[in-house]
């Protein structure tokens, strides 16, 4: 690990190297091609700025871009292709940045409104997390995120208890146990499970599971965190299975064979060699499943009650009120002004949580790949 000073010192070096390389590149390349790429770049940036500013003239630079790209494609295909694919790559980062900027910007008024004073210091947004009342109609108007966070946590815990163990077991089955013929039928089956639209899951849960649960558990009304969690767990299952299976398959065959050669059973090899070696990848899989469960919207919206309040007692899984996702999906219609901003706050919480989970699981996977000496 290089120290901070080293890195700071390395920056000018890298910069001058990049400068020299680009100078060489400019010297070697046909000036007409360079001009075309320059026009493409400028016009595309212009179109982007125009679009961001909601300008009616956005189309002008975009047409210039299309024309220059077409000219470049015909006469300088290599360089144009390179510039185009680079722009496409940048666009993925750009989209993520735009998502961050726009949902954060929309949530700012709400965060200002729900400021709370702690020790004489006003902390923006704090009141959304320290009191549990959501009341958008009668004063005092309060937008608390606590009931929805509670709901999301309940659903996610239950979903993880379903998707985690079952998913890892299914991944073991697919990667280590199943004979090829069985594998070829179960694997597409798991994928199709991921393909069933969440609204269909929700519909079946709403018409079938909901009334059944109300009857069997003697619940008032319909909508339980327990069954929403189970349904969401089923929807997160395919994610866990496919990522965990990849992790198990990444364990070198020589390790498994070495174990089997000293006379262990398949199961012993799995529990003492394969699983421990792949444990970080498997936990990344479960984490990604958790991310899916947090973000699941339609099944929760259809199956829950839609009343933003805590269950009583707080661990009562037989009543399902509202999650962060279902809050947005249910209230976007009549919401405007401050309430709409509150929905954006829910979106920000979801986005930040899931992005953090995604980054952590990527880091875990990267470490595992490095440890097993694979590529990267």
């Amino acid at each position, binding site marked *: 690990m290089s120290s901070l000073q080293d890195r700071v010192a390395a920056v000018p070096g890298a910069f001058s190297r990049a400068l020299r390389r680009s100078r060489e590149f400019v010297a070697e390349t046909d000036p007409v091609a360079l001009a075309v790429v320059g026009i493409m770049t400028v016009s595309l940036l212009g179109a982007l700025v125009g679009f961001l500013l909601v300008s*009616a*003239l*956005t189309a002008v630079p975009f047409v210039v871009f299309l024309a220059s790209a077409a000219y470049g494609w015909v006469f300088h295909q*290599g360089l144009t*292709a*390179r510039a185009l*694919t*680079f722009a*496409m*790559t940048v666009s*993925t*980062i750009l*989209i993520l940045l735009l998502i961050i900027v726009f*949902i954060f910007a929309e949530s700012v008024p709400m965060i200002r409104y729900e400021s709370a004073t702690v020790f004489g210091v006003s902390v923006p947004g704090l009141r959304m997390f320290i009191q549990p009342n959501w009341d958008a109609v009668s004063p005092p108007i309060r937008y608390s995120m606590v009931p929805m966070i509670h709901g999301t946590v309940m659903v996610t815990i239950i979903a993880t208890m379903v998707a985690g163990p*079952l998913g890892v*077991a*299914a991944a*073991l*089955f697919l990667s280590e146990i*199943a004979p090829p013929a069985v594998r070829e039928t*179960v694997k597409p089956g*798991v994928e199709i*499970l991921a*393909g*069933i*639209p*969440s*609204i*269909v*899951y*929700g*519909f079946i849960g709403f018409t079938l599971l909901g009334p*059944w649960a109300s*009857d*069997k*558990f*003697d619940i008032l009304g319909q909508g339980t965190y327990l069954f929403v969690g189970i349904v969401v767990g089923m929807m997160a*299952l395919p994610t866990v299975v496919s990522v965990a299976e990849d992790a198990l398959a990444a364990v070198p065959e020589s390790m498994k064979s070495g174990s*089997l050669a000293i006379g*262990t*059973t*398949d*199961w*012993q*090899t799995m529990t003492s060699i394969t699983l421990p070696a792949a444990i970080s990848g498997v936990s990344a899989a479960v984490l990604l499943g958790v*991310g899916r469960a*947090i*973000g699941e*919207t339609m099944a929760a919206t259809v199956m829950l009650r839609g009343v933003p309040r805590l269950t*009583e007692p707080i661990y009562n899984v*037989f*009543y399902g009120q509202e999650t962060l*996702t279902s809050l*947005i*999906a249910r209230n*976007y219609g009549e919401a405007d002004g401050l309430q709409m901003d509150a*929905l954006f706050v829910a*979106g920000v919480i979801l986005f930040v949580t899931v992005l953090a*989970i*995604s980054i952590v699981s990527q880091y875990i996977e990267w470490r595992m790949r490095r440890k097993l000496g694979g590529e990267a």
Partner: protein
Amino acid sequence: MATDSRTALVAGDTSGTDAVAAVAVGVAAVVFATAAAAMFGIVSLTDTILGVDVLLALGGLLVVLGVAVVSFGVGSRLGYVETQPRSSAGLVAGLAFTAIWFVTGGLVASQTLGLGTAGWLAVALGFGAVAFGISTFTREDVGSTIPAGAITVFAGLVFLLGVIDASWAWNLQWEQKASFTAEVAIPGLTLFCALVSGWASAKAYGGFGARGRHAGAYLLIYMNALAIIAVLFGLVAFTAVKGFPGLTRGFEVGLGVGPTTTLEYFLHLPFLDVAPGFSFSFDWPFYLPFAMNGVGLLNDFNGVLPAIVGTIWLVVGASLFAIPLGVGAAVFLTEYAERGRFTQVVEIATNGLWSTPSIVFGLFGFAFLVPRFGGNKSLLAGMLTLGFMLLPLVLITSREAMLAVPDEYRDASAALGVSQWQTIKSVVVPASIPGIVTGVILGVGRIAGETAPLLLTMAGGTFVPGGQTVDVIGGFAFQASPPFVTNPELLQATSALPYQLWALIAAGVGQSSNIGDAEAFKWATALILLIVVLGFYAIGIAMRQYFRRKIQS
């Protein structure tokens, strides 16, 4: 992995006991199936099977099962049965049994005997400690069978003695009331005991030791895989059965029964009166009103044609946006960029986009796209939002496909003096087309079923008249001033299948009388959505299978 087989010489003298253990596994399977049937109301607890109450039959079978499991373990300990047990059942099994017996003891003490918190805690701890002692400190054959068999016998006795009968209910006394009723407690308990005993018998069948653990674990893992497939099959079959009547209402086959479709194209040239072109119309040889009609007062049968067309256009629009972008970015990342900071950031961004919740994409579309397309929710905003969701899927799968192209191909091409772009265009991309296409189809299948982003960006009506079917191609108009191309069809809301299903659910049953049987209409919508989405998946998976086989051969 290597499969082990026993020779006749080794297996010979254990075949009798194998049979006993196999019978126990069989009994466990019967109990499991009966309890599952009771859980889902296929048989009632008060029914009789072969003259015996279901409840009594379950109790009796549980006792038999538990006794079999226990006697096998004891028999093995006393040396009547030849096995290869280890010295202990292990910590994992020990902790599991401790937890089971802790809960059992606690429930018996607090609910049946009515002890207070201190009392039930003491009893629960005592039960847990005994279970832990038996399962951890005795030899494996005893340690893994007695706690399992005992809980099964105990449950069976509870049913047989009527402590829990068909009218039993345990009110949890919570502020928001909930109770465990017999209808869920009895099947649930039975399923659990059948699983535990089934595991113990499978272990016994394997003769304990390493091989026994192998058998026990495999039983559970196979059950899990079976359950996943059963759930999948159940979901699809259930939707199909419920949706089929609504889908096929008014279905007719025969020449000329369907609606008339006209395909025409005329080239309007300036300064000429004649417009060369063709016109061709035909009648569909079948009539499926649900997929060919909208909703109208005068319709004999109502349908969801506008939603189907809307979904098709959404998918087309999202694909046109995401596929070039995703494939291009994948080309840059695999072929041009050197691995480093930049590619790392792109990778993190892509995976971040992949895991971003769909409703957040909806919020983003609402805040970013809707104000830029005239301030209304529109088809175009829906297309682009779904395109944003599709982009990471396309990028990830295309990148994998391009990384899988062997470097020899690139080297061979470079050795011929071909430029890098020529190599990409004529070697790398063609070689990775199968992977890209498969990934795209699977991704499209996923976005075709997405509802949440559409709520905020596109919306549409609950019951859409056939006249509102979107006509994107006919909507294009060109003009000389910016923005040069306009298309009002793209800038207005239309319906899509997943959105329509949501709207039908949210609107409640029987809201509109002109729909006829609202319930059948909903299920038919769900079925047609499932057909569209699973159609994409089926094509994608079949293509992957085909290409894989082609590569292997």
